[in-house]
């Protein structure tokens, strides 16, 4: 509506315009100081540990969290480059297990095909289940190595390869992870996928973590292997309680179809 348009000063033309007085300058100075303080707080919050950060940590954290929280890693310093999968298998009342199948295969296919739809966000959503589980496993492995090194009276190995690492494989640390929320989440994911596939006939579900690391750059043309290395961590099977309802979502239906296809 044209009456609302106001590209020019709104005050009447005959009203004399006062120049900036000391109060006006005070307002300007106040605003500039507030911006300066905010930027300083942000710099301390985001900066590396130093004397200023150590002494002001509590004040800065109280100011920045939760409204000015900043997470700008953006694939740095070490970018995420592994592919995490959570294949699922289901056991029917007859006691037979279905083959392992990735319930998200179809979702990934759609994500590659339709880049402007919401599949990317859904991939991110489900991907986080696997990446959280992987983080828990890696943390448990570190803890396991540390405790073994302490028990042996030696120092903890810096490298993850080698004999000590072999003693703390993903399979070894699974019993330590039973109470982890990421494990519980992955198992719920498996139960849902199985329920979507077999409904009430499924009595147990199992999920395993597969973490694929890409081939090193120097071996990129090596046709003998698809991946550089693979970590496989199967979680213990979980019983599936009878479903209260069979309102399967899109992802679950996709999972069901895939599992059905994979079944012999």
């Amino acid at each position, binding site marked *: *509506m044209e009456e609302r348009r*106001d590209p020019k000063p*709104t*005050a009447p033309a005959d009203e004399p315009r006062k120049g900036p007085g000391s109060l006006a300058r005070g307002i300007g100075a106040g605003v500039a100081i507030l911006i300066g303080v905010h930027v300083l707080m942000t710099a301390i919050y985001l900066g590396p540990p130093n004397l200023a950060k150590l002494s002001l940590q509590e004040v800065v954290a109280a100011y920045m969290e939760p409204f000015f929280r900043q997470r700008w890693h953006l694939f*740095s310093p070490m970018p995420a480059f592994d592919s995490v999968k959570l294949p699922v298998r289901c056991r029917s009342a007859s006691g037979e297990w279905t083959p392992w199948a990735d319930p998200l295969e179809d979702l990934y296919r759609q994500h590659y095909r339709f880049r402007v739809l919401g599949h990317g*966000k859904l991939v991110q959503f489900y*991907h986080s289940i696997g990446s959280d589980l992987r983080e828990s496993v890696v943390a448990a492995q570190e803890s396991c190595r540390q405790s073994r090194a302490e028990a042996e009276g030696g120092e903890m190995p810096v490298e993850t390869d080698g004999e000590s690492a072999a003693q703390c494989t993903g399979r070894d640390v699974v019993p330590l992870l039973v109470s982890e929320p990421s494990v519980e989440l992955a198992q719920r994911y498996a139960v849902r996928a199985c329920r979507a596939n077999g409904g009430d006939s499924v009595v147990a579900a199992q999920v395993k973590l597969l973490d694929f690391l890409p*081939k090193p750059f120097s071996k*990129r043309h090596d046709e003998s292997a698809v991946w550089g290395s693979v970590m496989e961590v199967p979680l213990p099977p979980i019983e599936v309680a009878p479903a209260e309802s069979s309102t399967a979502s899109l992802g679950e239906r996709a999972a069901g179809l895939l599992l059905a296809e994979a079944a012999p």
Partner: protein
Amino acid sequence: MNANDRLLEGRPPTPVGAHLGLATERLRRGLDWFTEAERSPSTKRLFRNLFFAWLLLHTLLLLPFAREIFAPDSLVIREPFDASSLVHWVFRLSLAPGFEGFYTVFVVVQVGLLCAALTGVTSRLVTLLIYVATLNVNAMAPSLLDGGNNLSELLLLYLVLVDTSGHHRIARTDWDRLRIAVSNAGLVLMRLQVVIVYLTAGMLKLNGELWQRGMALYYILQADAFSHPWMNEIVTRWPWVGMIGTYTTLAFQWLFPTMVWFRRTRPWILTLGVMLHLGIAFGMGLLTFGLIMCLVYVLFLEERTTARVLAWLGAVPRLEVTVRGDARRLPGLVAALARLAPADSVRLTVTADPQAPRLLVGESPALRRPSEDEPVAQGDAVPASVSGEHRWCGAAALLRLTARCRWTWPFFPLHLSLALVWYLGLGGRLFDLAFPIVAAVEDAREHSPAAVR
């Protein structure tokens, strides 16, 4: 006595005095920049519209999967609700016991507020409500949140400070100065925030071995969640593409915080940024992150450019509406509808001409926004007659007017009802019943010279 006074008295200032005087003057000018006038109003307005459109797109993309993502039993680890925290009661209400089942309400409220804001219902209060709704929606799906969401939350908070009406205001009182200063501070904070993002990410990347060796992109594009089979193929077959991409990203993130402040270098760095982030959006599949990073560059565009873009976006045919002042209820209704229409798209005239139809709407074919230098007075003279190629009267005219504000969602049912009535051929009769001419004026018309003749 400062350096200028000394100069006026004929005594040359000492070099240190001259420099101090210059520094003081620049500081004063800097402080006045905040308080004297609304800076970059078109930029603020254009950014607000694009930013709200991005927020809307983000939520709409998730709608088909809303149950999977937002439902109480969805596969996500949520922050526990702290009943003793006021912050949680406002910004994490969606996580409160008893509220989890109403996740659709939070999503609908956010979408509704964004639709209202995009159709012109804007104020700082609306922005604040959008901020609250967005934080509640985000709290329900923390695993979905990436750097783009983090940035959007921060920008929304700063946007609450900003006057996004697009009006050029000049301060006349100290109260004006305070309001304008807060608005300009919001713009500065948003720009600084974007710079902080790149500065932090650039510094962190320098510590990464893969980034230093130029191989980060090769490895990132092997991960199936952040890649596409084609991209994977490209970096494997032509490794130099990955290397150039890695070093370009590093160089961009390091140069942006400096180059973006200079007029000559700004277009180059922004163009490079757009290319980089479109690559992230479509190559890596991080659509919403890539888009918001392109969108924030609007904050750095010059006022002239954003004013032109706004004019181009607002180039819809203007409706010239003439309404009889003596028709009962009609002038008030028409004025309300005109207020809901996009800015400058309706020109309203109230006439006392007894020969005029009660409501006449004409569509003017050639329309443009006035330029900044063109004076547009408040309540300027409007033509008595309605010109244009297309004209509508009565119910059809009212329908035309509601169509102009059809995307303002509370009025969508009104528009639909009117369209149905008009389609059934009942429009004219109902219009006569609803908006009769006031009797006193009718009498005056009967005894007017025109009527006698």
